[in-house]
């Protein structure tokens, strides 16, 4: 019987944009068990909710993570709106979804680039990030920031996008779409990509349900779960929404789901720009959340379903605010998919699951 060895992986590793540590128990070159350890970038942001009033706290939620920044401010605002019974104007709802879907495009392009870099396809990495730059350009033109948008507040949005600027955004996305099709073809048709990703990190549909994985990780295992299909907020304006699924259950399927979601998000933005109503940008929010009031809301972040909980105490400070992020759901599934894989496949396995450690640790 081969001797068992423990190899530490991370928290600093070229494939990890953020720190997570894994103790890999290996036998020969095969991983028997992976023991995760998190807590390297815990900042205690949830506790800050007791020191900042509920309206100012949006600025903190936006800084939870650099990739899902707008999503967290949106999720927090929606939770407080449920807590206080605030009706958000339709134009604000649609603008929120447009920014959120653009965030998904930039997040997925960033991830596709990192994946290409992970398997040594430098040119593809650069092309993905070059395209992503245009989305960041749209953010800068419309909100003044490339990462921290500062566009969402409790009750609506802080700034408008003029209708002609919205049509300009669609033109930019249409220009990106042709170039993206070339990249999509490379990810989905190129033999070198398939050779590296097929059969990596298999997670069957039953196991995916058992471990409660979320987002593209779950959808690549054939679970049709996408909070967007409930039609909350601005998604209610969409004619139809079907989540992108795959039954292949491996790393290649995760790549395929994310790659196709980029096109889907571009389509959503295009449809919403045609349907955007005129009207107010923000509803007046007065008073404080009632003592003992509780609210939850769910949001489809680029990495999956994100769950928000807030509890009021009658003052302008919240009693408790809690986020359950998709990456914390996915960690259990990630550890499961590690069992039995080759040591050389561990980086690819982690990349295809795409854990966002900043969100997980807050």
């Amino acid at each position, binding site marked *: 019987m081969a001797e068992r060895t423990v190899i530490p992986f991370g928290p600093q590793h070229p494939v990890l944009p953020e720190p997570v540590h894994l103790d890999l128990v290996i036998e020969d070159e095969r991983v028997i068990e992976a023991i995760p350890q998190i807590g390297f970038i815990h900042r205690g942001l949830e506790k800050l909710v007791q020191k900042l009033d509920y309206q100012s706290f949006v*600025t903190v939620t936006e800084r939870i993570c650099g990739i899902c920044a707008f999503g967290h401010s949106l999720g927090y605002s929606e939770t407080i709106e449920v807590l206080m019974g605030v009706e958000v104007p339709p134009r604000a709802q649609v603008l929120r979804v447009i920014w959120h879907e653009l965030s998904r495009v930039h997040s997925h392009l960033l991830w596709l680039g990192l994946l290409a870099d992970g398997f040594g396809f430098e040119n*593809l990495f650069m092309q993905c990030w070059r395209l992503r730059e245009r989305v960041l350009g749209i953010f800068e033109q419309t909100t003044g920031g490339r990462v921290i948008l500062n566009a969402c507040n409790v009750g609506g949005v802080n700034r408008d996008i003029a209708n002609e600027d919205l049509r300009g955004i669609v033109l930019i996305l249409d220009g990106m779409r042709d170039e993206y099709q070339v*990249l999509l073809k490379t990810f989905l048709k190129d033999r070198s990509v398939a050779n590296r990703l097929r059969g990596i990190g298999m997670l069957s549909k039953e196991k995916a349900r058992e471990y409660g994985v979320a987002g593209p990780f779950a959808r690549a295992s054939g679970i049709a779960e996408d909070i967007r299909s409930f039609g909350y907020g601005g998604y209610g304006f969409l004619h139809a929404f079907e989540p992108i699924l795959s039954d292949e259950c491996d790393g290649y399927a995760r790549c395929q789901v994310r790659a196709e979601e980029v096109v889907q998000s571009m389509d959503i933005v295009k449809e919403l720009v045609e349907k955007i109503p005129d009207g107010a940008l923000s509803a007046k929010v007065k008073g404080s959340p009632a003592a003992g009031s509780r609210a939850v809301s769910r949001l489809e972040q680029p990495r999956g379903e994100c769950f928000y909980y807030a509890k009021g105490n009658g003052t302008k400070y919240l009693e408790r605010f809690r986020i359950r992020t998709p990456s914390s759901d996915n960690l259990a599934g990630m550890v499961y998919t590690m069992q039995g894989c080759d040591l050389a496949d561990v980086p690819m396995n982690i990349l295809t699951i795409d854990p966002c450690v900043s969100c997980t640790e807050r």
Partner: protein
Amino acid sequence: MGIQITGMALKNLLSRPATKLYPVEPQVYTSQTRGHVDNNIEACILCSICVRKCPATALAVDKEARTWTINPFSCVQCMTCVRVCPRDSLSMLPEYTPVASNMSTRTLVKPEEKPEEA
């Protein structure tokens, strides 16, 4: 490997670089860029609403000394102060502040109001 993107790669050989040679090529600010907060101190009434609302505690007002102070190293350009200002004396300007050699705050002094002539 990568036959599909050969055309794109060749096209890139003939096109301009995707990156900017900063600072030789200057940064272009958009009209929305959040560079730094400025205060039209003559319109300011030193009401301190901006101080109370600032999530980064970057602002301070001293009513007796008639000063409005901002710590640019704490400011996160969230524009909360600009939105809550009752006199619209605060504004967000697109230019970033120049590189500083020491961490200092910026203080504006409100001039004394002249007594109205009888």
